């Protein structure tokens, strides 16, 4: 009898505490959102701001926070939650094996997409956009995921690639296929040029410097009017040709040579395959490089820079190659972007773009190739299908970045498998790190005792 009443008292107490905490959360939420969500400012007819209330929106948000906090307190309470509580570890282990098949399936889908949905121009354009970001993500993955250097100005190299092609085509008349390698070389040259002085810096300083470089390049593109036409951008960037055969309705064009009826879709499909091949090349090079000494040096660098230096690895050169390699792929992607759009302006190369690519890499899991591809497809594709929520895109990306860092810092789908290992290949996950830490700690304590 007494046991029962104790239990019910405890439950009652838990209920009251949860209610109290949820009320506190709601109060904080009210403080946070009262002015910014509760009151709307619009520009009135005289140009001055006019206020209007938005109490229902405020009430909904605060109510949601209250309900969320209450449920969270009741269900979870003080305990911390781990992913393994929801997903059994065995399933996570199997997910790795599954990852391979998913990768192959995705590849197959990507190859077949233009054949199956040949007439769906919208879908093809979306596919091209996603593949461009997949390629950028894979390129940035070399820098961030493998070498562990946080590059916040990645879009600068994308811009270098795009402008290299546009300017070379405009001023000298070079074709896309000639400019593609040139753009990559120029971008990686810039990567080396910018990287050389700054790569001695520590992780977060490096990140800020790359951010500054990215902004400097964009501001120069805006202000160097005589070369870049400033904010107006460059129009009429030439389209690519198929081994010298242009995609138009003239004699000697692609359609005529192959006896096909001319269709604007030929070019789109061609562009789709170009970016698919470029992205796959990026992936292949990354996978191969990981097995070379330089790739191993990158991974070692990511784990511990000081240990790396103690073992005789030239950290500056190692960082520089990662930086240049990442920049090169951004350069390729940039010149592809220029030829696809036919128009480029500094608007396309803002910090938001860098942040978007970084978010894709972070969500996919730094160092995981398949993860980056899935993240790009899900996030960008998802928002294309829910057009009405497009304005929430970056908000969701930002929230996802924070959440991923807290719950699953190695990425949503990714597990970080080391390329070299002792005895048994196993993932470096939070659990392993924790175990290793407690082990060394208890060992240390034992020694001191």
């Amino acid at each position, binding site marked *: 009898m007494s046991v029962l009443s104790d239990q019910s008292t405890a439950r009652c107490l838990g209920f009251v505490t949860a209610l109290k905490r949820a009320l506190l959360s709601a109060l*904080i939420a009210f*403080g*946070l959102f*009262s*002015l*910014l*969500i509760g*009151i*709307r*400012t*619009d*520009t009135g007819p005289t*140009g*001055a*701001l006019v*206020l209007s209330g938005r109490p229902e929106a405020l009430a909904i948000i605060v109510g949601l926070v209250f309900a969320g906090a209450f449920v969270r307190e009741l269900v979870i309470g003080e305990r911390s939650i781990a992913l393994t509580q929801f997903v059994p570890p065995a399933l996570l282990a199997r997910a790795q094996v599954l990852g391979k098949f998913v990768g192959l399936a995705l590849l197959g889908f990507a190859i077949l997409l233009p054949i199956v949905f040949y007439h769906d121009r919208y879908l093809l354009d979306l596919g091209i956009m996603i593949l461009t970001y997949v390629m950028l993500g894979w390129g940035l993955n070399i820098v961030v995921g493998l070498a*562990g250097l*946080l590059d*916040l100005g990645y879009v600068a190299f994308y811009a270098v690639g795009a402008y290299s092609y546009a300017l070379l085509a405009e001023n000298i008349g070079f074709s896309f296929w000639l400019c593609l390698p040139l753009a990559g070389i120029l971008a990686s040259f810039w990567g080396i040029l910018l990287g050389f*002085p*700054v790569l*001695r*810096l*520590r*992780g*977060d*300083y490096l*990140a*800020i*410097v790359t*951010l*500054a*470089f990215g*902004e*400097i390049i964009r*501001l*120069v593109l*805006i*202000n160097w009017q005589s070369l870049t036409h400033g904010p107006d951008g460059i129009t009429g960037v030439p389209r690519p040709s198929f081994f010298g055969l242009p995609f138009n309705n003239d004699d000697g064009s692609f359609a005529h040579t192959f006896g096909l009826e001319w269709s604007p879709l030929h070019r789109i499909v061609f562009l789709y395959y170009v970016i698919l091949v470029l992205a796959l090349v990026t992936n292949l090079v990354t996978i191969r490089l990981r097995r070379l000494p330089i790739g191993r040096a990158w991974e070692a660098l990511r784990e511990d820079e*000081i240990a790396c230096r103690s073992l005789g690895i030239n950290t500056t050169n190692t960082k520089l190659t990662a930086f240049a390699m990442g920049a090169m792929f951004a350069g390729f992607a940039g010149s592809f972007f220029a030829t696809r759009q036919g128009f480029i302006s500094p608007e396309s190369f803002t*910090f*938001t773009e860098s*942040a978007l690519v*970084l*978010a894709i890499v*972070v969500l996919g899991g730094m160092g995981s190739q398949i993860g980056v591809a899935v993240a790009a497809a899900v996030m960008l594709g998802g928002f294309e299908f829910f057009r009405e929520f497009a*304005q*929430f895109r*970056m*908000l969701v*990306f*930002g*929230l*996802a*970045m*924070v959440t991923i*860092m*807290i719950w699953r*810092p190695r990425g949503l789908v990714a597990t970080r498998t080391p390329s070299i290992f002792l005895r048994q290949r196993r993932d470096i996950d939070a659990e392993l790190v924790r175990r290793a830490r407690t082990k060394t700690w208890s060992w240390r304590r034992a020694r001191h005792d």
Partner: protein
Amino acid sequence: MDYFFQQLINGVTLGSIYGLIAIGYTMVYGIIGMINFAHGDIFMVSAFLGLIAFLALVAIGVTAVPLALFLVLLIAMALTSLYGWTVEHFAYRPLRRSFRLAPLISAIGMSIVLQNYVQIVQGARVKPLPPLIPGGFTLVDDPSFPVQLSNVQILVVVTTVVLMAIFSWLVARTRLGRDMRACEQDLKMASLLGVNVDRTISYTFVIGAALAAVAGIMHLLYYGVIDFYIGFIAGVKAFTAAVLGGIGSLPGAMLGGLLIGLIETMWSAYFSVEYKDVAAFSILVIVLIFLPSGILGRPEVEKV
């Protein structure tokens, strides 16, 4: 010479605003060694809070400008502190023991969130505020180029100086300040000696946000327009100021802020307005490469 003198006044005003923001960066970096990338956006949020609070006060009949401004300052400081606290609590605190880059990535995420949140709830257009504090003094009555000191500029500089004095007192003389200095020297040791580290870090974020809120209001009064993007540029410049002065050093942040304000103004006045942001970013790069410990900072020892 008059032209130079005028630019000096403008530069000091701008520098005060940067200095106030820079303190938030330098304190957080000093204590937990992370770059609070979202701090610039906290500044931006505070400017919006101030603007809306002011308009709301006018709407309910508080029309006396000094009283309204005082209330706006209090409201903005309180609510911005709440933002600072919330950001620390949800986005940074769980990451204390995570890997090296995790807090920075989380901070970038938070910065994106704040920017887009304000853009969604308040719109992307610039928000104007009519000049509230008109008038000023003409210091040099040269007909070709009169040197002017506006009342807003006086308010900005005086407020900054007063806040700096209060803040220095807080760090040097109070219990909280002592805890903060202890945490800055050695987080683990401080916690072993009974300093509530989590609470001290929370207060650090709250104080940083409150100072950023003052900077936000000053920005609003000085320029009269704000948009959701002001936090990014101002944040990078204030961070540059913190690094230039020596990150982790409080007088350094103030000095760095003044220097950045002056350099930016002089650059715009004598070289080119278009490249003023390039100048600020270049200084950041140059300082980080050649003088990473800043003017007043200590060189950092790399620990294994």
